[in-house]
């Protein structure tokens, strides 16, 4: 009898195991049927074009794709905050949300219901129109930017030739919206937060565009699908070929989407919440949701630009490619959570210095190197091994440039012995200090 009771703590884990096995089995059965989701949209299109005009068919089939993407974003917003809170709880030696539903999975829904029930306070001096519009409008670029993401071989919703430019243009619309959110609150904290956001976003768009330029020049296209296909045809991940671009893009994007260590726009210990300090209830919830959605969007972008999209060493032939894509995206998201749980925050001037004095010049050098390499690659017939060589060269140059820059700006690593406290030999004031002082 006691044997049975001793198993009780493990029942939860057993359930998880069973669920995972069950999911795998169902996934295996469904993977054939759900291998390529685009066929369903095409089927709708074929069905509708018989019944009605081209426009109606086009509209209804594209609606299905859009609904698919929006429902994925909705799922991300529901599960993402749970994942983040549970993960951070694990980092912080606590349990995390575990009361609502099994493993607290329903916690985001409970949060949303609580936020919706809360009274939405509007400051008396606020600019009511802009204050109302900002949290709604900030959702638009966050959702629009998902359109050209390539989920699988035929699963790009908006397969346009200017995919990167499109994402870049749409996401740049966030800046004025955040500014309006901060300005219309008529709160000094909010204004400070929005000014910080604008200053940082304006600065960090340059390294982002330089790093994306390296990607574009080496692949010769702005189309995200073709970038993914270029990586698989040359059998290298761009993240390995141009590591500095990956680093620049990732780091700068954390600044753009206000994630630690660059979350100075809403630094809770300094300016409390930054631009959305005056928002309450679901309006604040919308800002938080967009922040979370942007983090996952960053994961998707890094995946398709640098991590070879839906390809994973031939595994994409056996399991649905979009599953691989989502897995990679979630991996990047988890890296973001890891950073958030670990690192303190930079100061504004440190971040600005880093962008202008380190990232931009090094990105330009990196860009020129990649331009030279691209000309060599395009003029050679068998470019496969030369690309591997370039990957090694690029990594070496990446490390070398960082060392060079730290020498130029005299950033020497603080050695722990040099900054550890000393111990007093004698107790007293200034006179006793002279006895113990052994540094500088």
């Amino acid at each position, binding site marked *: 009898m006691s044997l049975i009771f001793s198993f009780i703590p493990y029942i939860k884990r057993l359930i998880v195991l069973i669920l995972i096995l069950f999911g795998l089995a169902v996934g295996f059965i469904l993977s054939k049927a759900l291998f390529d989701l685009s066929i369903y949209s095409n089927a709708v299109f074929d069905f509708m074009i018989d019944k009605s005009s081209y426009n109606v068919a086009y509209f209804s089939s594209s609606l299905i794709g859009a609904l698919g993407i929006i429902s994925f974003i909705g799922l991300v917003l529901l599960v993402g905050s749970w994942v983040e809170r549970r993960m951070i709880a694990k980092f912080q030696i606590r349990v995390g949300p575990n009361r609502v539903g099994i493993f607290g999975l329903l916690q985001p829904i409970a949060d949303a219901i609580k936020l919706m029930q809360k009274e939405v306070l509007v400051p008396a001096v606020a600019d009511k*129109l802009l204050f109302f519009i900002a949290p709604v409008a900030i959702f638009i670029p966050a959702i629009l930017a998902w359109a050209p993401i390539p989920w699988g071989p035929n699963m790009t919703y908006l397969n346009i030739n*200017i995919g990167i430019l*499109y994402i870049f243009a749409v996401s740049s619309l966030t800046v004025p919206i955040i500014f309006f959110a901060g300005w219309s609150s008529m709160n000094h904290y909010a204004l400070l937060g929005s000014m910080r956001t604008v200053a940082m976003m304006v600065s960090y768009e340059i390294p982002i565009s330089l790093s994306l330029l390296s990607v574009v020049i080496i692949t010769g296209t702005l189309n995200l699908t073709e970038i993914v296909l270029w990586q698989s045809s040359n059998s290298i991940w761009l993240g390995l070929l141009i590591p500095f671009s990956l680093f620049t893009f990732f780091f700068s994007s954390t600044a753009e989407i206000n994630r630690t260590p660059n979350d100075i726009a809403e630094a809770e210990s300094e300016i409390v919440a930054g631009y959305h300090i005056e928002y309450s209830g679901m309006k604040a919830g919308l800002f938080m949701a967009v922040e979370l959605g942007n983090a996952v969007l960053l994961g998707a972008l890094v995946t398709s630009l640098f991590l070879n999209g839906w390809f994973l060493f031939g595994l994409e032939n056996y399991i649905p490619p979009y599953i691989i894509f989502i897995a990679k995206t979630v991996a990047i998201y988890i890296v973001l959570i890891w950073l958030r749980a670990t690192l303190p925050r930079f100061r504004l001037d440190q971040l600005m210095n880093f962008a202008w004095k380190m990232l931009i010049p090094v990105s330009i050098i990196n860009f020129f190197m990649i331009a030279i390499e691209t000309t060599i690659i395009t003029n050679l017939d068998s470019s496969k091994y030369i690309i591997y060589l370039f990957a090694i060269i690029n990594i070496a140059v990446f490390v070398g440039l960082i060392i060079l820059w730290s020498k130029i700006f005299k950033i020497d690593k603080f050695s722990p012995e040099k900054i550890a406290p000393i111990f007093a030999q004698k107790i007293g004031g200034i006179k006793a200090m002279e006895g113990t002082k052994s540094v500088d």
Partner: protein
Amino acid sequence: MIEFSTYNVIFFSISSFTLISAISVGLVNSLMRSLFFLILTFIGVAGLFILLSADFIAIAQLLIYAGSISILLLFAVMLTPESSTNNGNSKYFLPGILIGIIFTYLMVALVTIFQFNQLSGIHLKKLDFDNTIASIGELLLGKYIIAFELASILLLFALIGAISIVRSNESDFLISLNNKDKK
């Protein structure tokens, strides 16, 4: 008579959106709000470009005007004293109206003089650029290379000029500081 097609519905909704926001730019009292409507106008214009199958220009419009120029204007407004107060009683009201009338006249004249049939979206679509951005790139770095290079040199000079203006002020400032220290 305008035919009722999907294209026209979309065109008229986007253009009315653009027009309404453009008119609101002048009508609202708060400078910030007019800036907000200006951004909406930029976005509407980008939509019109998309209808003209000019996707690159549409994106450039979004990127440069809605994304960047608007930030520049935001800073300009932030540096303007009393930016949030009533701007309806501006002394530039009459000149503004006059200039507006002149521009309206010019626009109407342009529209009536030119034959826009060949330049509308459907006709452009028939030309069928398979890859706009590639064609634009080839044109810029082929046929119009001199214009492109001249533009880039102009921008470079503008950049250097801006930096040098700032630097010269700063050096004056530093010199005055040094003199102060010497005294």
